[in-house]
Protein backbone atom coordinates (compact mmCIF):
# COMPACT_ATOMS: atom_id res chain seq x y z
CA UNK A 1 0.00 0.00 0.00
CA UNK A 2 1.29 3.46 -0.83
CA UNK A 3 1.71 5.65 2.20
CA UNK A 4 1.17 9.37 2.49
CA UNK A 5 4.23 11.37 3.38
CA UNK A 6 3.34 13.23 6.54
CA UNK A 7 5.81 14.27 9.21
CA UNK A 8 3.04 15.30 11.56
CA UNK A 9 2.49 11.57 12.10
CA UNK A 10 5.20 11.97 14.71
CA UNK A 11 2.55 13.40 17.03
CA UNK A 12 0.78 10.05 16.97
CA UNK A 13 4.02 8.30 17.85
CA UNK A 14 4.99 10.66 20.63
CA UNK A 15 3.10 9.16 23.60
CA UNK A 16 4.42 5.73 22.79
CA UNK A 17 7.92 7.09 22.34
CA UNK A 18 7.85 8.83 25.71
CA UNK A 19 6.80 5.66 27.45
CA UNK A 20 9.24 3.37 25.69
CA UNK A 21 12.01 5.87 26.30
CA UNK A 22 11.25 5.71 29.99
CA UNK A 23 11.32 1.93 30.06
CA UNK A 24 14.11 1.36 27.54
CA UNK A 25 16.42 4.31 26.96
CA UNK A 26 16.94 5.49 30.54
CA UNK A 27 17.83 1.99 31.79
CA UNK A 28 20.07 1.40 28.80
CA UNK A 29 21.93 4.63 29.52
CA UNK A 30 22.41 3.47 33.09
CA UNK A 31 23.87 0.20 31.84
CA UNK A 32 26.28 2.02 29.53
CA UNK A 33 27.24 4.30 32.40
CA UNK A 34 28.04 1.41 34.72
CA UNK A 35 29.89 -0.57 32.10
CA UNK A 36 32.74 1.93 32.03
CA UNK A 37 33.02 2.54 35.76
CA UNK A 38 34.12 0.78 38.88
CA UNK A 39 31.45 1.46 41.50
CA UNK A 40 32.40 1.06 45.16
CA UNK A 41 29.43 3.01 46.44
CA UNK A 42 27.28 5.76 44.93
CA UNK A 43 29.85 8.44 45.69
CA UNK A 44 33.06 6.55 44.94
CA UNK A 45 33.45 5.65 41.30
CA UNK A 46 36.38 5.24 38.96
CA UNK A 47 36.40 5.44 35.23
CA UNK A 48 37.67 2.13 33.86
CA UNK A 49 37.21 2.46 30.12
CA UNK A 50 36.96 -0.83 28.32
CA UNK A 51 38.43 -2.89 31.16
CA UNK A 52 35.18 -4.71 32.02
CA UNK A 53 34.51 -5.51 28.38
CA UNK A 54 37.96 -7.07 27.95
CA UNK A 55 37.55 -8.98 31.19
CA UNK A 56 34.11 -10.30 30.25
CA UNK A 57 35.10 -11.32 26.75
CA UNK A 58 38.03 -13.28 28.16
CA UNK A 59 36.05 -14.92 30.94
CA UNK A 60 36.02 -18.68 30.24
CA UNK A 61 32.82 -19.18 32.24
CA UNK A 62 30.97 -16.67 30.08
CA UNK A 63 32.39 -18.07 26.89
CA UNK A 64 31.15 -21.48 27.97
CA UNK A 65 27.72 -20.04 28.82
CA UNK A 66 27.55 -18.33 25.43
CA UNK A 67 28.51 -21.53 23.63
CA UNK A 68 25.96 -23.49 25.67
CA UNK A 69 23.38 -20.86 24.83
CA UNK A 70 23.96 -21.15 21.08
CA UNK A 71 23.95 -24.96 21.26
CA UNK A 72 20.65 -24.85 23.15
CA UNK A 73 18.99 -22.34 20.80
CA UNK A 74 20.08 -24.35 17.76
CA UNK A 75 18.89 -27.64 19.24
CA UNK A 76 15.43 -26.42 20.10
CA UNK A 77 15.00 -24.68 16.74
CA UNK A 78 15.94 -27.87 14.90
CA UNK A 79 13.35 -29.81 16.91
CA UNK A 80 10.56 -27.27 17.31
CA UNK A 81 10.32 -25.89 13.77
CA UNK A 82 9.80 -29.20 11.90
CA UNK A 83 7.64 -30.56 14.73
CA UNK A 84 5.55 -27.38 14.80
CA UNK A 85 4.97 -27.52 11.05
CA UNK A 86 3.92 -31.16 11.38
CA UNK A 87 1.46 -30.38 14.19
CA UNK A 88 -0.01 -27.50 12.20
CA UNK A 89 -0.65 -29.83 9.26
CA UNK A 90 -2.34 -32.32 11.59
CA UNK A 91 -4.59 -29.84 13.40
CA UNK A 92 -8.26 -30.14 12.42
CA UNK A 93 -9.49 -27.21 10.37
CA UNK A 94 -13.13 -26.91 11.35
CA UNK A 95 -15.78 -28.08 13.76
CA UNK A 96 -15.64 -28.33 17.52
CA UNK A 97 -12.47 -30.43 17.26
CA UNK A 98 -10.67 -27.40 15.83
CA UNK A 99 -11.64 -25.27 18.85
CA UNK A 100 -10.70 -27.93 21.37
CA UNK A 101 -7.34 -28.68 19.79
CA UNK A 102 -6.60 -24.97 19.43
CA UNK A 103 -7.23 -24.30 23.11
CA UNK A 104 -5.22 -27.34 24.22
CA UNK A 105 -2.28 -26.54 21.98
CA UNK A 106 -2.23 -22.93 23.23
CA UNK A 107 -2.28 -24.04 26.85
CA UNK A 108 1.48 -24.34 27.53
CA UNK A 109 2.05 -20.80 26.20
CA UNK A 110 -0.17 -19.29 28.89
CA UNK A 111 1.57 -20.75 31.90
CA UNK A 112 3.91 -18.42 33.80
CA UNK A 113 7.47 -19.40 33.02
CA UNK A 114 8.47 -20.31 36.53
CA UNK A 115 5.32 -22.44 36.87
CA UNK A 116 6.47 -24.27 33.74
CA UNK A 117 9.64 -24.98 35.68
CA UNK A 118 7.63 -26.14 38.70
CA UNK A 119 5.45 -28.42 36.57
CA UNK A 120 8.50 -30.12 35.11
CA UNK A 121 10.21 -30.26 38.46
CA UNK A 122 7.20 -32.19 39.79
CA UNK A 123 6.89 -34.28 36.63
CA UNK A 124 10.53 -35.38 36.48
CA UNK A 125 11.17 -36.17 40.13
CA UNK A 126 12.40 -39.74 40.48
CA UNK A 127 10.25 -40.47 43.53
CA UNK A 128 6.98 -38.57 42.99
CA UNK A 129 7.06 -37.53 39.31
CA UNK A 130 5.38 -39.59 36.63
CA UNK A 131 8.20 -39.24 34.10
CA UNK A 132 11.11 -39.67 36.49
CA UNK A 133 9.41 -42.55 38.26
CA UNK A 134 8.53 -44.32 34.96
CA UNK A 135 12.08 -44.01 33.64
CA UNK A 136 13.43 -45.53 36.84
CA UNK A 137 10.89 -48.34 36.63
CA UNK A 138 12.21 -49.35 33.22
CA UNK A 139 15.73 -49.36 34.63
CA UNK A 140 17.18 -46.01 33.55
CA UNK A 141 18.84 -44.22 36.51
CA UNK A 142 17.29 -40.87 35.58
CA UNK A 143 18.52 -38.00 37.74
CA UNK A 144 18.61 -34.37 36.69
CA UNK A 145 20.39 -33.20 39.82
CA UNK A 146 23.48 -35.32 39.28
CA UNK A 147 23.58 -36.25 35.61
CA UNK A 148 24.35 -33.27 33.30
CA UNK A 149 23.07 -35.10 30.22
CA UNK A 150 19.72 -35.87 31.87
CA UNK A 151 19.42 -32.24 32.96
CA UNK A 152 20.23 -30.97 29.47
CA UNK A 153 17.82 -33.33 27.72
CA UNK A 154 15.08 -32.49 30.22
CA UNK A 155 15.50 -28.74 29.66
CA UNK A 156 15.30 -29.28 25.90
CA UNK A 157 12.22 -31.47 26.34
CA UNK A 158 10.63 -28.86 28.58
CA UNK A 159 11.28 -26.16 26.01
CA UNK A 160 9.83 -28.30 23.23
CA UNK A 161 6.76 -28.89 25.40
CA UNK A 162 6.44 -25.20 26.19
CA UNK A 163 7.09 -23.59 22.81
CA UNK A 164 6.38 -26.00 19.92
CA UNK A 165 2.80 -24.72 20.21
CA UNK A 166 3.89 -21.25 19.15
CA UNK A 167 5.37 -22.53 15.87
CA UNK A 168 2.36 -24.81 15.38
CA UNK A 169 -0.12 -21.94 15.86
CA UNK A 170 1.83 -19.60 13.60
CA UNK A 171 1.92 -22.25 10.86
CA UNK A 172 -1.72 -23.15 11.45
CA UNK A 173 -2.75 -19.54 10.85
CA UNK A 174 -0.50 -19.41 7.80
CA UNK A 175 -2.10 -22.56 6.40
CA UNK A 176 -5.61 -21.24 6.98
CA UNK A 177 -4.81 -18.26 4.76
CA UNK A 178 -4.24 -20.50 1.69
CA UNK A 179 -7.26 -20.24 -0.64
CA UNK A 180 -9.13 -23.49 -1.26
CA UNK A 181 -8.70 -22.94 -5.02
CA UNK A 182 -5.00 -23.81 -4.72
CA UNK A 183 -5.85 -27.23 -3.34
CA UNK A 184 -8.53 -27.81 -5.99
CA UNK A 185 -6.05 -27.02 -8.73
CA UNK A 186 -3.54 -29.40 -7.15
CA UNK A 187 -6.17 -32.14 -6.96
CA UNK A 188 -6.96 -31.75 -10.66
CA UNK A 189 -3.25 -32.06 -11.39
CA UNK A 190 -3.17 -35.17 -9.17
CA UNK A 191 -0.37 -33.63 -7.15
CA UNK A 192 1.06 -35.82 -4.38
CA UNK A 193 0.83 -34.78 -0.74
CA UNK A 194 4.52 -34.02 -0.77
CA UNK A 195 4.17 -31.83 -3.86
CA UNK A 196 1.30 -29.91 -2.26
CA UNK A 197 3.39 -29.35 0.84
CA UNK A 198 6.54 -28.45 -1.06
CA UNK A 199 5.04 -26.13 -3.67
CA UNK A 200 1.89 -24.70 -2.07
CA UNK A 201 2.02 -24.90 1.71
CA UNK A 202 5.69 -24.33 2.50
CA UNK A 203 6.08 -21.19 0.34
CA UNK A 204 2.97 -19.76 1.99
CA UNK A 205 4.45 -20.45 5.39
CA UNK A 206 7.79 -18.69 4.91
CA UNK A 207 6.45 -15.38 6.19
CA UNK A 208 5.10 -16.72 9.47
CA UNK A 209 8.02 -19.12 9.84
CA UNK A 210 10.54 -16.28 9.79
CA UNK A 211 8.57 -14.58 12.55
CA UNK A 212 8.38 -17.88 14.43
CA UNK A 213 12.09 -18.60 14.18
CA UNK A 214 12.87 -15.03 15.22
CA UNK A 215 10.63 -15.17 18.29
CA UNK A 216 11.86 -18.62 19.27
CA UNK A 217 15.49 -17.66 18.88
CA UNK A 218 15.05 -14.52 20.97
CA UNK A 219 13.08 -16.21 23.71
CA UNK A 220 15.42 -19.16 23.90
CA UNK A 221 18.26 -16.70 24.20
CA UNK A 222 16.56 -15.09 27.20
CA UNK A 223 15.59 -18.36 28.87
CA UNK A 224 15.77 -17.84 32.60
CA UNK A 225 12.94 -18.91 34.86
CA UNK A 226 12.47 -22.49 33.65
CA UNK A 227 16.03 -23.82 34.17
CA UNK A 228 16.31 -21.65 37.28
CA UNK A 229 13.40 -23.49 38.88
CA UNK A 230 14.09 -26.92 37.39
CA UNK A 231 17.82 -27.38 37.87
CA UNK A 232 19.13 -24.12 39.31
CA UNK A 233 21.65 -24.18 36.45
CA UNK A 234 23.20 -27.44 37.58
CA UNK A 235 24.57 -29.99 37.91
CA UNK A 236 27.80 -28.05 37.75
CA UNK A 237 27.13 -25.38 35.16
CA UNK A 238 25.62 -27.70 32.58
CA UNK A 239 22.31 -25.82 32.31
CA UNK A 240 23.46 -22.30 33.17
CA UNK A 241 22.46 -19.97 30.35
CA UNK A 242 23.34 -16.35 29.69
CA UNK A 243 20.45 -14.67 31.52
CA UNK A 244 21.16 -16.67 34.61
CA UNK A 245 24.86 -15.83 34.69
CA UNK A 246 23.87 -12.22 34.28
CA UNK A 247 21.23 -12.24 37.00
CA UNK A 248 23.63 -13.86 39.45
CA UNK A 249 26.34 -11.34 38.63
CA UNK A 250 24.06 -8.32 38.94
CA UNK A 251 21.81 -9.19 41.87
CA UNK A 252 23.66 -11.79 43.93
CA UNK A 253 27.29 -10.74 43.61
CA UNK A 254 26.67 -7.03 42.92
CA UNK A 255 29.44 -6.94 40.33
CA UNK A 256 27.74 -3.99 38.73
CA UNK A 257 30.45 -2.96 36.29
CA UNK A 258 31.17 -6.38 34.78
CA UNK A 259 27.46 -7.21 34.73
CA UNK A 260 26.74 -4.03 32.80
CA UNK A 261 29.51 -4.72 30.30
CA UNK A 262 28.22 -8.27 29.93
CA UNK A 263 24.67 -6.94 29.40
CA UNK A 264 25.83 -4.74 26.57
CA UNK A 265 27.72 -7.57 24.85
CA UNK A 266 24.61 -9.72 25.26
CA UNK A 267 22.40 -6.97 23.87
CA UNK A 268 24.67 -6.43 20.87
CA UNK A 269 24.51 -10.13 19.96
CA UNK A 270 20.70 -10.00 20.09
CA UNK A 271 20.65 -6.77 18.10
CA UNK A 272 22.82 -8.24 15.37
CA UNK A 273 20.69 -11.36 14.99
CA UNK A 274 17.52 -9.27 15.17
CA UNK A 275 18.76 -6.99 12.41
CA UNK A 276 19.49 -9.96 10.13
CA UNK A 277 16.00 -11.37 10.70
CA UNK A 278 14.34 -7.98 10.27
CA UNK A 279 16.04 -7.50 6.92
CA UNK A 280 14.89 -10.94 5.81
CA UNK A 281 11.28 -10.26 6.90
CA UNK A 282 11.21 -6.90 5.16
CA UNK A 283 12.55 -8.40 1.94
CA UNK A 284 9.98 -11.19 2.10
CA UNK A 285 7.19 -8.70 2.56
CA UNK A 286 8.49 -6.58 -0.30
CA UNK A 287 8.54 -9.70 -2.47
CA UNK A 288 5.00 -10.66 -1.60
CA UNK A 289 3.82 -7.07 -2.03
CA UNK A 290 5.23 -6.94 -5.54
CA UNK A 291 3.50 -10.22 -6.35
CA UNK A 292 6.59 -12.42 -6.54
CA UNK A 293 5.20 -14.96 -4.10
CA UNK A 294 1.92 -15.22 -6.06
CA UNK A 295 -0.58 -13.76 -3.64
Amino acid at each position, binding site marked *: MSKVRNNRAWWLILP*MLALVAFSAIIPLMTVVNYSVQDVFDPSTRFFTGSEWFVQMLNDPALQAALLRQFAFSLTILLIEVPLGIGIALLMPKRGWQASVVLVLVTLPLLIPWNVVGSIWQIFTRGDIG*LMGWSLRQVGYPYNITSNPLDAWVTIVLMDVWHWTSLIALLCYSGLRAIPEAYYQAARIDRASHWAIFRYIQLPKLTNVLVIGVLLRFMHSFMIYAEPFVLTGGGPGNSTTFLSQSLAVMATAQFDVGPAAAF*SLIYFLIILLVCWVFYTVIMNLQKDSASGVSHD
Partner: protein
Amino acid sequence: MTDVIRKGRVIRRTLLMGLYLLFVLLPIYWLVNMSLQSNSEILGELTLWPQQLTWGNYTRIFTDSSWYMGYVNSITYVLMNMVISMAVALPAAYAFSRYSFIGDKHLFFWLLTNMMAPPAVFLLPYFQLYYSVGLFDTHIAVALAHCLFNIPLAVWILEGFMSSVPREIDETAFIDGYSFPRFFLRVFLPLIRSGIGVTLFFLFMFSWVELLLARTLTSTQAQPIASVMTRTSTASGIDWGTLAAAGVLTIVPGILVVFFVRHHIAKGFALGRT
Protein backbone atom coordinates in the same frame (compact mmCIF):
# COMPACT_ATOMS: atom_id res chain seq x y z
CA MET B 1 -10.31 -48.59 -2.31
CA THR B 2 -9.52 -44.88 -2.08
CA ASP B 3 -12.02 -44.70 0.76
CA VAL B 4 -10.00 -47.24 2.70
CA ILE B 5 -6.81 -45.31 2.08
CA ARG B 6 -8.46 -42.06 3.12
CA LYS B 7 -9.89 -43.63 6.24
CA GLY B 8 -6.47 -45.01 7.14
CA ARG B 9 -4.96 -41.59 6.71
CA VAL B 10 -7.58 -39.94 8.93
CA ILE B 11 -6.93 -42.50 11.65
CA ARG B 12 -3.19 -41.99 11.42
CA ARG B 13 -3.58 -38.21 11.61
CA THR B 14 -5.89 -38.43 14.61
CA LEU B 15 -3.48 -40.81 16.29
CA LEU B 16 -0.45 -38.56 15.79
CA MET B 17 -2.38 -35.48 16.92
CA GLY B 18 -3.60 -37.39 19.98
CA LEU B 19 -0.04 -38.37 20.79
CA TYR B 20 1.08 -34.74 20.77
CA LEU B 21 -1.87 -33.64 22.90
CA LEU B 22 -1.00 -36.42 25.35
CA PHE B 23 2.53 -35.03 25.53
CA VAL B 24 1.13 -31.54 26.17
CA LEU B 25 -1.39 -32.64 28.76
CA LEU B 26 0.53 -35.26 30.73
CA PRO B 27 2.68 -32.84 32.79
CA ILE B 28 -0.39 -30.66 33.40
CA TYR B 29 -2.40 -33.70 34.44
CA TRP B 30 0.33 -34.58 36.90
CA LEU B 31 0.17 -31.09 38.37
CA VAL B 32 -3.61 -31.31 38.79
CA ASN B 33 -3.27 -34.82 40.23
CA MET B 34 -0.82 -33.65 42.89
CA SER B 35 -2.84 -30.57 43.75
CA LEU B 36 -5.67 -32.87 44.87
CA GLN B 37 -3.51 -34.96 47.17
CA SER B 38 -2.24 -34.39 50.67
CA ASN B 39 1.52 -34.09 51.11
CA SER B 40 1.75 -37.47 52.84
CA GLU B 41 0.05 -39.13 49.90
CA ILE B 42 2.26 -37.28 47.39
CA LEU B 43 5.42 -38.41 49.14
CA GLY B 44 4.17 -41.94 49.70
CA GLU B 45 3.38 -44.53 47.05
CA LEU B 46 3.15 -43.11 43.52
CA THR B 47 -0.46 -43.28 42.32
CA LEU B 48 -1.90 -42.28 38.97
CA TRP B 49 -4.89 -40.51 40.53
CA PRO B 50 -5.68 -39.19 44.02
CA GLN B 51 -6.66 -42.05 46.36
CA GLN B 52 -7.92 -39.70 49.06
CA LEU B 53 -9.19 -36.70 47.19
CA THR B 54 -8.64 -33.46 49.15
CA TRP B 55 -9.37 -29.82 48.43
CA GLY B 56 -7.16 -28.73 51.33
CA ASN B 57 -4.45 -27.27 49.13
CA TYR B 58 -6.96 -25.02 47.40
CA THR B 59 -8.71 -23.93 50.58
CA ARG B 60 -5.31 -22.94 52.00
CA ILE B 61 -4.75 -20.62 49.04
CA PHE B 62 -8.25 -19.13 49.08
CA THR B 63 -8.29 -18.47 52.82
CA ASP B 64 -4.78 -17.03 53.24
CA SER B 65 -4.63 -13.42 52.05
CA SER B 66 -0.87 -13.56 51.43
CA TRP B 67 -1.68 -16.29 48.90
CA TYR B 68 -4.72 -15.01 47.08
CA MET B 69 -3.43 -11.43 47.05
CA GLY B 70 -0.66 -12.75 44.82
CA TYR B 71 -3.26 -13.47 42.14
CA VAL B 72 -4.95 -10.11 42.70
CA ASN B 73 -1.60 -8.34 42.35
CA SER B 74 -0.70 -10.20 39.18
CA ILE B 75 -4.05 -9.51 37.55
CA THR B 76 -3.91 -5.85 38.62
CA TYR B 77 -0.62 -5.11 36.94
CA VAL B 78 -1.48 -7.17 33.88
CA LEU B 79 -4.71 -5.16 33.37
CA MET B 80 -2.89 -1.85 33.96
CA ASN B 81 -0.30 -2.84 31.42
CA MET B 82 -2.96 -3.78 28.85
CA VAL B 83 -4.66 -0.39 29.20
CA ILE B 84 -1.43 1.63 29.01
CA SER B 85 0.01 -0.37 26.12
CA MET B 86 -3.19 -0.11 24.08
CA ALA B 87 -3.60 3.60 24.71
CA VAL B 88 -0.22 4.49 23.25
CA ALA B 89 0.14 1.67 20.70
CA LEU B 90 -3.09 2.37 18.80
CA PRO B 91 -2.16 5.85 17.51
CA ALA B 92 1.44 4.79 16.93
CA ALA B 93 0.42 1.74 14.91
CA TYR B 94 -1.94 3.93 12.88
CA ALA B 95 0.91 6.31 12.08
CA PHE B 96 3.18 3.45 11.03
CA SER B 97 0.54 1.84 8.84
CA ARG B 98 -0.71 5.02 7.11
CA TYR B 99 2.08 7.55 6.88
CA SER B 100 5.70 7.69 5.91
CA PHE B 101 7.72 10.16 7.89
CA ILE B 102 11.30 10.95 8.76
CA GLY B 103 12.95 7.97 10.41
CA ASP B 104 9.90 5.69 10.39
CA LYS B 105 11.76 2.53 9.35
CA HIS B 106 14.57 3.05 11.85
CA LEU B 107 12.07 3.77 14.59
CA PHE B 108 10.13 0.60 13.84
CA PHE B 109 13.29 -1.49 13.94
CA TRP B 110 14.39 0.11 17.18
CA LEU B 111 10.97 -0.69 18.64
CA LEU B 112 11.35 -4.34 17.72
CA THR B 113 14.76 -4.54 19.35
CA ASN B 114 13.07 -3.60 22.63
CA MET B 115 10.88 -6.63 22.29
CA MET B 116 14.04 -8.68 21.99
CA ALA B 117 15.79 -7.03 24.92
CA PRO B 118 16.40 -9.68 27.56
CA PRO B 119 14.84 -8.53 30.85
CA ALA B 120 18.01 -9.66 32.61
CA VAL B 121 19.87 -6.81 30.91
CA PHE B 122 17.57 -4.24 32.44
CA LEU B 123 17.24 -5.78 35.86
CA LEU B 124 19.58 -3.55 37.81
CA PRO B 125 18.76 -0.20 36.16
CA TYR B 126 15.04 -0.91 36.55
CA PHE B 127 15.43 -1.59 40.20
CA GLN B 128 17.31 1.65 40.71
CA LEU B 129 15.07 3.71 38.44
CA TYR B 130 11.83 2.68 40.09
CA TYR B 131 13.35 2.84 43.53
CA SER B 132 14.56 6.41 43.04
CA VAL B 133 11.19 7.67 41.75
CA GLY B 134 9.39 5.97 44.64
CA LEU B 135 7.48 3.45 42.56
CA PHE B 136 9.21 0.37 43.92
CA ASP B 137 6.78 -2.34 45.07
CA THR B 138 3.75 -0.81 43.33
CA HIS B 139 1.59 -2.35 40.63
CA ILE B 140 2.20 0.50 38.26
CA ALA B 141 5.96 -0.16 38.37
CA VAL B 142 5.52 -3.66 36.98
CA ALA B 143 2.88 -2.45 34.51
CA LEU B 144 5.29 0.18 33.18
CA ALA B 145 8.23 -2.22 33.12
CA HIS B 146 6.27 -4.72 31.05
CA CYS B 147 5.64 -1.96 28.51
CA LEU B 148 9.22 -2.56 27.42
CA PHE B 149 8.22 -5.63 25.42
CA ASN B 150 4.43 -5.25 25.27
CA ILE B 151 4.20 -1.88 23.52
CA PRO B 152 6.44 -2.95 20.63
CA LEU B 153 4.47 -6.18 20.37
CA ALA B 154 1.16 -4.31 20.31
CA VAL B 155 2.40 -1.86 17.68
CA TRP B 156 3.68 -4.71 15.56
CA ILE B 157 0.46 -6.74 15.63
CA LEU B 158 -1.87 -3.73 15.28
CA GLU B 159 0.13 -2.35 12.38
CA GLY B 160 -0.42 -5.64 10.54
CA PHE B 161 -4.17 -5.53 11.09
CA MET B 162 -4.48 -1.83 10.26
CA SER B 163 -2.57 -2.23 7.02
CA SER B 164 -5.15 -4.72 5.83
CA VAL B 165 -7.85 -2.03 6.06
CA PRO B 166 -7.92 -0.13 2.75
CA ARG B 167 -6.98 3.51 3.19
CA GLU B 168 -9.87 4.58 0.94
CA ILE B 169 -12.02 4.12 4.03
CA ASP B 170 -10.03 6.78 5.88
CA GLU B 171 -10.28 9.14 2.93
CA THR B 172 -14.02 8.66 2.49
CA ALA B 173 -14.57 9.32 6.18
CA PHE B 174 -12.54 12.54 6.05
CA ILE B 175 -14.46 13.70 2.96
CA ASP B 176 -17.68 12.99 4.84
CA GLY B 177 -16.48 15.46 7.44
CA TYR B 178 -15.37 13.15 10.23
CA SER B 179 -12.76 14.66 12.50
CA PHE B 180 -9.74 12.44 13.11
CA PRO B 181 -10.61 11.38 16.69
CA ARG B 182 -14.22 10.68 15.74
CA PHE B 183 -13.17 8.70 12.66
CA PHE B 184 -10.63 6.75 14.70
CA LEU B 185 -13.04 5.79 17.46
CA ARG B 186 -16.28 5.37 15.52
CA VAL B 187 -15.13 4.00 12.17
CA PHE B 188 -11.62 2.65 12.35
CA LEU B 189 -11.49 0.81 15.67
CA PRO B 190 -14.64 -1.26 14.97
CA LEU B 191 -13.04 -2.34 11.69
CA ILE B 192 -10.01 -3.83 13.41
CA ARG B 193 -11.98 -5.21 16.35
CA SER B 194 -10.62 -8.72 16.05
CA GLY B 195 -7.09 -7.34 15.77
CA ILE B 196 -7.60 -5.47 19.03
CA GLY B 197 -8.93 -8.60 20.71
CA VAL B 198 -5.95 -10.60 19.55
CA THR B 199 -3.53 -7.90 20.64
CA LEU B 200 -5.08 -7.79 24.11
CA PHE B 201 -4.68 -11.55 24.27
CA PHE B 202 -0.97 -11.29 23.52
CA LEU B 203 -0.50 -8.42 25.98
CA PHE B 204 -2.18 -10.50 28.65
CA MET B 205 -0.13 -13.54 27.80
CA PHE B 206 3.29 -11.94 27.92
CA SER B 207 2.65 -9.84 30.99
CA TRP B 208 1.07 -12.76 32.84
CA VAL B 209 3.97 -15.14 32.21
CA GLU B 210 6.83 -12.68 32.86
CA LEU B 211 8.49 -13.20 36.19
CA LEU B 212 11.98 -11.75 36.32
CA LEU B 213 11.04 -8.05 36.21
CA ALA B 214 7.87 -8.53 38.25
CA ARG B 215 9.82 -10.19 41.02
CA THR B 216 12.64 -7.67 41.01
CA LEU B 217 10.36 -4.63 41.18
CA THR B 218 8.19 -5.81 44.04
CA SER B 219 8.66 -7.01 47.59
CA THR B 220 5.42 -7.37 49.56
CA GLN B 221 2.62 -4.99 48.52
CA ALA B 222 2.54 -5.88 44.82
CA GLN B 223 4.16 -9.29 44.86
CA PRO B 224 3.07 -11.40 41.87
CA ILE B 225 1.72 -14.90 42.42
CA ALA B 226 4.79 -16.35 40.74
CA SER B 227 7.01 -15.10 43.52
CA VAL B 228 4.53 -15.95 46.27
CA MET B 229 4.86 -19.52 45.05
CA THR B 230 8.51 -19.66 46.09
CA ARG B 231 7.26 -19.64 49.70
CA THR B 232 6.25 -23.29 49.40
CA SER B 233 9.92 -24.14 49.70
CA THR B 234 10.84 -24.09 53.38
CA ALA B 235 13.49 -25.57 55.62
CA SER B 236 11.36 -28.64 56.21
CA GLY B 237 11.12 -29.34 52.47
CA ILE B 238 8.78 -28.34 49.68
CA ASP B 239 5.04 -28.12 50.27
CA TRP B 240 4.27 -29.99 47.02
CA GLY B 241 0.50 -29.98 47.39
CA THR B 242 0.17 -26.22 47.80
CA LEU B 243 2.76 -25.59 45.08
CA ALA B 244 0.76 -27.76 42.67
CA ALA B 245 -2.56 -26.11 43.58
CA ALA B 246 -1.06 -22.65 43.13
CA GLY B 247 0.32 -23.76 39.77
CA VAL B 248 -3.07 -25.00 38.61
CA LEU B 249 -4.65 -21.68 39.59
CA THR B 250 -2.12 -19.74 37.48
CA ILE B 251 -3.25 -21.69 34.42
CA VAL B 252 -6.95 -20.91 34.88
CA PRO B 253 -6.96 -17.24 33.72
CA GLY B 254 -5.03 -18.29 30.62
CA ILE B 255 -7.59 -20.95 29.76
CA LEU B 256 -10.44 -18.45 30.19
CA VAL B 257 -8.79 -15.85 27.98
CA VAL B 258 -7.87 -18.32 25.25
CA PHE B 259 -11.41 -19.72 25.30
CA PHE B 260 -12.91 -16.29 24.61
CA VAL B 261 -10.59 -15.41 21.74
CA ARG B 262 -10.26 -18.90 20.25
CA HIS B 263 -11.86 -17.89 16.95
CA HIS B 264 -9.36 -15.12 16.42
CA ILE B 265 -6.26 -16.85 17.71
CA ALA B 266 -5.27 -18.40 14.39
CA LYS B 267 -5.25 -15.01 12.71
CA GLY B 268 -3.58 -13.36 15.65
CA PHE B 269 -0.65 -15.71 15.67
CA ALA B 270 0.18 -14.63 12.14
CA LEU B 271 0.27 -11.14 13.72
CA GLY B 272 -2.26 -9.98 11.16
CA ARG B 273 0.07 -10.80 8.32
CA THR B 274 -1.51 -13.66 6.43
